[in-house]
């Protein structure tokens, strides 16, 4: 099992994601350079936060053209796990791997603060270590996190239960006040239909150590680790069966 953190020019949470995966979660983790065409056999790709290419045009709009994105897309289409955090979420939207777009926050200001998000479904690769209805306290830090999609797309998202996390208050109510950036349906985290790609505006890597104020973000990393180990054991079993049949 190996994690890969993609480094775009202008990424600034790349080292943070790397640190948590390697030092806190104790996982084999590598940096993936955006100009390469090699995913180095990783089993999960993390697109980190930051301002890729300065984000002067539109957040994530240039990063989608980075050479490595060809491999990331192919990896995702084959069912590989992809986690996009903050700018990484924005890149996933620009890549067309997730539906919708990000608008400026409703108050037209950058927002850096703790928020509460609610786990909507604990049967996914990203939440299996948590519980449905669980409330996580995780910080956000973004200017463009106001999720938007046309009504038909939103309806599809809700039908397919793709909204994996919603902004809520401390008691778990997805209220307007708790929806700090103005996202439609309080969406903080969104999956694709196949449930192997997650875009997340809050930063779980900033909430993985008690010293820094919260460990709630570990639920997401732990879920991925568990999912990957069970996949591996499934694959190992399958390989074992094949071996016996031969």
């Amino acid at each position, binding site marked *: 099992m190996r994690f890969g953190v993609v480094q775009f020019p202008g990424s*600034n949470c790349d080292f*943070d994601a790397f*640190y948590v995966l390697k030092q806190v979660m104790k996982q084999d983790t590598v940096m993936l350079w955006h100009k390469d065409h090699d995913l180095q056999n990783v089993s999960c790709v993390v697109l980190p936060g930051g301002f890729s290419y300065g984000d002067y045009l539109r957040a994530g709009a240039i990063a989608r053209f980075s050479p490595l994105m060809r491999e990331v897309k192919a990896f995702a289409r084959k069912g590989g796990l992809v986690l996009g955090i903050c700018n990484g979420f924005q890149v996933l939207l620009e890549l067309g791997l997730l539906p919708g777009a990000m608008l400026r926050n409703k108050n037209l200001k950058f927002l850096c603060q703790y928020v509460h998000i609610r786990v909507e479904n604990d049967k996914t690769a990203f939440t299996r270590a948590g519980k449905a209805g669980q409330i996580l306290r995780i910080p956000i830090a973004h200017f463009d996190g106001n999720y938007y999609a046309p009504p038909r797309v939103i309806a599809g998202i809700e039908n397919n239960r793709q909204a994996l996390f919603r902004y809520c208050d401390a008691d778990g109510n997805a209220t307007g006040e708790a929806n700090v950036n103005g996202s439609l349906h309080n969406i903080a985290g969104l999956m694709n239909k196949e449930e192997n790609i997650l875009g997340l505006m809050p930063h779980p890597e900033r909430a993985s*150590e008690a010293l*820094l104020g919260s460990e709630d973000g570990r639920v997401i990393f732990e879920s991925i680790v568990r999912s990957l180990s069970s996949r591996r054991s499934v694959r190992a079993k399958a390989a074992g069966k094949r071996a016996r049949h031969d």
Partner: protein
Amino acid sequence: MIDKKVLDEHNLTEEEYRRIVELIEKEPNRTELGIFSVMWSEHCGYKSSRVHIRKLPTEGRNVVQGPGENAGVLDIGDGQVLVFKIESHNHPSYIEPYQGAATGVGGILRDIFTMGARPIAVLDSLRFGPLKSPENRAIMDGVVSGIAGYGNSIGVPTVGGEIYFNECYSANPLVNVFCLGLARKDKIFLARAEGIGNPVLYVGAKTGRDGIHGATMASAEFGKETEHKRPNVQVGDPFKEKLLVEACLEVMDRGLILGIQDMGAAGLTCSTTEMAAKGGLGIEIDLDLVPQREAGMTPYEILLSESQERMLLVCTKENVRKIQEVFAKWDLDAPIIGRVTEGGQVRVLFKGEVVVDIPVEAVVNLCPAYRRPSQPPSRLPSAVRMPLLPVPADIEDVFFRLLASPTIADKEWVFRQFDHMVQTNTVFFPGADAAVLRIKGSKKAVAMTLDGNPFYAALDPSTGAKIAVAEACRNLACVGARPIGVTNCLNFGSPEKPEIMWQLEQVIDGLAEACRAFEIPVTGGNVSFYNDTEGVSIYPTAVLGIVGIIDDVRKAVSPGFKAEGDVILLAGENREELGGTEYVRVIHRVETGAPPRIDLEREKRVQEFCLKAIDAGLARSAHDLSEGGLAVALAECAFHSRGPVGCAVELDDPIRPDALAFGETQSRILLSARPADLDRLTGLARAAGIKLSAIGKTGGADIVLRHRGRDLVRVPVEDAYRRWKDSIPRFFRARSKGEA
């Protein structure tokens, strides 16, 4: 022909011109004159302050690099060093708030990574005029957005700072930006040219016409017409700087370069001449090789441009290719534009001709130093007695008004626009007494604070300066950190006014005395003069940036109450001191009288007690008493608790109730502790020789402050919190509805 008019345009005196001619043994051409004009400006040459700042103590056990380089360097053990500095960007931020503040951040970041350190924290000290004015709100909004726009993008957390409001800053906002970086002690780089014949490389953004004479602009008073100076303000590109940080740190880490200097004020001129001067060598550059953003630039413009995000490197010939490969990886060019030469001349070629040929020593080190006339004001503000103030009947109402006073009110509206968590080191967020960052891979943490109450200094500059040092150290003590070094940003009006020079002398005397008392070296800083608009000067504003170390980050303490039923303790003594307080200024509209007294020995004992209490794990919270005094400090401890946790406190000091509640007597710290630990704390206080009083308990939903059997304040925490929380956002909400 260089006449009086040309000299005026270059802000040089005839006397200075004569000195130039003498030093370079010829009449300078226009380009050479331009070089002297920026390098001998107040901003670059420190000509009015140099003789005074020499009085500051600069030596200490931990000092690896004192003043004179891009930033100071302190040893923190384990082969690691802290690199830090503060700088002002006041004038540009008034003319163009967003870009002025943004490039202020960009500039100080370059000072830090130029030394080989990765920037890990930014703090800002800001001063604005009252928020009831739409102009002041626009300036504040622009400055805050600018700091956010640059710092957030580049990924360096803005972890703290301070903001004061006063009329004197209306047309003179102050933007002082502090940055701290972390480096390996054996990987520190200096701005020094080495090795005759070695190539000089230019990296980063292309050179344009922006910012020409920025340094000269910052060295003169503003009149009514500042609009035309807007083009003097540079435009920042944080993305480019992010690439520069990564590429520079990579070539440094691989040991590929010999010397490096950023192009800040005075751009290419300053970086080339300073590198040559520090190496005791000469330098030659060819302007045709300098990447340019626009065609037709003259040598004068290329040399004096202050385009941002540019650096100059010196390396051996063998390493040029490897360096260029690293920069290419980050999509940056690194062309050779010149070489290090023998003989100490700076020579500049343009289209095959020598356009500049002058000795670097004259440019860099022989700028005249003035001991300008100084004279105390005819009537010292502190000598003007305060009028007899009536004790307000309703202390609670005063309490609410002070909580809503912007200087005291919650600054979250500002801080949540800053990414204060990126790099995942931030242990305490803005709002704590000091910012605390863990150092990955060790148990240690670094704590930082900026302090500079301008109201005390306005009444008595020397006392104000001493209090600024004392308060900064006290803030560090409150989180459990021992101070190890200081940087300062001294903001004043025009040095051509004798009373301003008197203020400077007084401030420096105060700083020197206090830094010696705390045994903390000053490793660098910045002096910003000419903070006058239309003849009105700002208050003398000395901002202290003090850095401290916590040996075990798990012991760090925050200001909020931790639990109900804890005992509340006050270290220090309550005196009847109202001069210079937020209370008399906001409630009684009085700005005279003497500021609070400061006894540095007593202060040290109080801080030593606090540090020992925290180290022994006895203090569950600690918070210093500053603007708004005891009542406001109690409220802040309640606001910062998770809960919220109220408090009930009773005192019987024989002083006026308003002085008890809101007086700003120095050397006081509010702590909370488990009742079982009270005896041990009392023992520590006795050993330290300070007064420690158990004044109440935490708990309940109210903030209660009683004096001699009478309620001064009894209000729900929630009500007080709202007043404090909503004050600043309200000003900006009103504006967005167009109600200004």
